[in-house]
């Protein structure tokens, strides 16, 4: 039993339980959440370090040998995702100290938050397909409650759409798991990776691949399944939509990348061309949808969709550099996107509105804070030397090497349009003169600190990943190598018996 692998799953559960037992003591819950998130981040970083030093880590739960028991396994990609989710957990936990209202905290915000983190980490670490379904459900049920916690009308309406589409996707996922088990006789992903090649019905395997594509595609909000996302993500309070925006769709992307590197690589020409088309449409529709929006968080929600396209593009190009670009892009995007949502939340707290036309003059009243927004916004658009630039550069370079000029053109045009949307927010909320009706409700010092610390930290990371991109890129390259050549993954799970 490898404690490092179990910790990112068990520790959030322990924190959630402690918070449940301290139901009425909100001060304690708040302190616990920050301490718990620090420990979680430390544990995930230790896991990342172990994976970097010693290679893929695996542990069999309950001592049942793979492929019969449930395996937890961390390759470089998983470990990176767990580390970044730990980081998001910590920043959002700090932000929640001021950004979440007392009424929602009284209804179990903190326990739900940690159960969500548990589900996310479980999905990143599991090596078993049915177990992945279970973690998805853990994550979903926590996210359902977080989405509608507080019960405002917009939340309920957005929540209903969110719940419906996610249940639909779960039903597809479950059906696909059932057929896959009937076809290959196993659900251990490493074992499946070896056996799917031997299945004598290639048509059935392709059907399964597309079923999984649809199931995870809904969760990752790719074209044409994305419409639930901009209908719901802007409705809950900021900390909730920030953690959703940062992490949840990326779990879908993670699952897609895992499926289409480990399992469904029999007919790359077909599946990855399909992915390529989807990637292009996802980028374009997302960014065009965003261009029409006038609401801070709704605009950002459409950009989530558009950015997912870049990650799928990296997967579809199917070269080491492209996959490394995709992994780098996921990491960069989680940080930048969460930060933009956090900034949107501060703006809402200050002026009570997120409607861009009603805002203005932020650059004059709070120049330094405005710069923090600008850093993340420009990183999202891919302006050098910020983190987004390197992600996009690797993807574009990989696309040119693979002679996929169409998708490269789309990627470049979309990034220009992204810049257009970001300047739109900048011009409307920060630069133009404030409308007469705009009133600022002052912040207490403690509130300001809780808001600004996570935002500064994430903006600093965006700059750091841009200036010193080498280590992160190395990590991403290693992750991409392991994804493209999963022998080490398979050996770690199944042992030398079949490796």
């Amino acid at each position, binding site marked *: 039993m490898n404690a490092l692998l179990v910790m990112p799953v068990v520790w959030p559960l322990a924190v959630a339980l402690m918070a449940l037992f301290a139901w009425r003591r909100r001060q304690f819950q708040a302190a616990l959440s920050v301490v718990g998130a620090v420990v979680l981040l430390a544990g995930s970083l230790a896991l990342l370090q172990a994976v970097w030093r010693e290679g893929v880590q695996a542990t069999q739960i309950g001592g049942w040998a793979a492929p019969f028991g449930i395996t937890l396994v961390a390759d470089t990609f998983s470990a990176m995702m767990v580390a970044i989710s730990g980081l998001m957990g910590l920043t959002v936990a700090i932000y929640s100290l001021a950004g979440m209202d007392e009424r929602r905290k009284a209804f179990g915000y903190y326990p739900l938050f940690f159960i969500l983190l548990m589900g996310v980490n479980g999905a990143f670490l599991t090596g078993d397909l*049915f177990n992945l*379904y*279970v973690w998805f*459900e853990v994550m*979903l*049920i926590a996210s*359902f*409650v977080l989405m*509608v916690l507080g*019960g405002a*009308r*917009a939340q*309920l*309406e*957005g*929540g*209903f*759409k969110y*719940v*419906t589409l996610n*249940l*639909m996707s*779960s*039903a*597809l996922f*479950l*059906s696909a*798991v*059932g*057929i896959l*088990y*009937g*076809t290959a006789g196993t659900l251990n992903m490493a074992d499946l990776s070896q056996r799917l090649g031997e299945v004598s019905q290639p048509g059935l395997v392709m059907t399964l691949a597309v079923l999984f594509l649809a199931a995870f595609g809904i969760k990752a909000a790719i074209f044409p399944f994305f419409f639930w996302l901009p*209908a*719901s993500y*802007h*409705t809950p309070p900021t900390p909730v939509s920030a953690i959703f925006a940062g992490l949840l769709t990326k779990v879908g992307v993670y699952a897609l990348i895992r499926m289409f590197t480990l399992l469904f690589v029999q007919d790359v020409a077909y599946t990855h061309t399909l992915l390529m088309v989807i990637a292009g449409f996802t980028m374009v529709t997302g960014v065009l949808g965003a261009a029409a929006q*006038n*609401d801070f968080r709704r605009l950002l929600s459409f950009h989530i969709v558009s950015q997912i396209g870049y990650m799928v593009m990296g997967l579809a190009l199917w070269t080491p550099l492209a996959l490394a670009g995709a992994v780098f892009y996921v990491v960069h995007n989680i940080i930048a996107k969460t930060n933009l949502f956090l900034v949107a939340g501060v703006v809402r707290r200050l002026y009570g509105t997120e*409607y861009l036309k009603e805002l203005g003059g932020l650059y004059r009243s709070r120049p330094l804070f405005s710069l923090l927004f600008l850093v993340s916004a420009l990183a999202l658009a891919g302006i050098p030397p910020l983190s987004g630039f390197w992600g996009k550069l690797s993807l574009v370079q990989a696309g040119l090497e693979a002679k996929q000029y169409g998708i490269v053109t789309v990627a470049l045009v979309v990034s220009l349009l992204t810049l257009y949307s970001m300047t739109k927010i900048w011009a409307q909320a920060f630069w133009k003169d404030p409308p007469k009706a705009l009133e600022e409700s002052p912040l207490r010092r403690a509130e300001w600190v809780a808001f600004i610390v996570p935002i500064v930290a994430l903006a600093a990371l965006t700059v750091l990943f841009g200036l010193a991109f080498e280590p992160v890129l190395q990590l991403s390259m290693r992750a991409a190598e392991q994804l493209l050549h999963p022998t080490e993954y398979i050996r770690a799970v199944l042992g030398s018996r079949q490796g």
Partner: protein
Amino acid sequence: MNVLVALLVGALYAGGLYMMMRRSLVKLLIGLMLLGHAANLLIFADGRLVHGNPPLVPVGATQPPPGPIADPLPQALILTAIVIGFGVQAFAVVLMRSTYQTANTDDLDQLRGTDREHE
């Protein structure tokens, strides 16, 4: 037997999707439940239907009894899926009720508050 179960699963999927495309909240929810049942039965059928041979090894035996034996794993999967499905559906029912009470309509076409521009 396999054909019958296959037809049943197909009917459940069709019914579920049909119900989901209706405009009422309740019917949408019933559709989702039917989809869940369809998926569960599909797993059951995919585990190969075998008549009358439970997957039990007699006490003291070192080998499973001869002949085809039902695979216990799909049943374990379905059990898990049913429990999860039950929890999620119970939540969805409550959500449906409070959506109905807050929005004062069960017509899905009227639930457009989050798509509209700022008012």
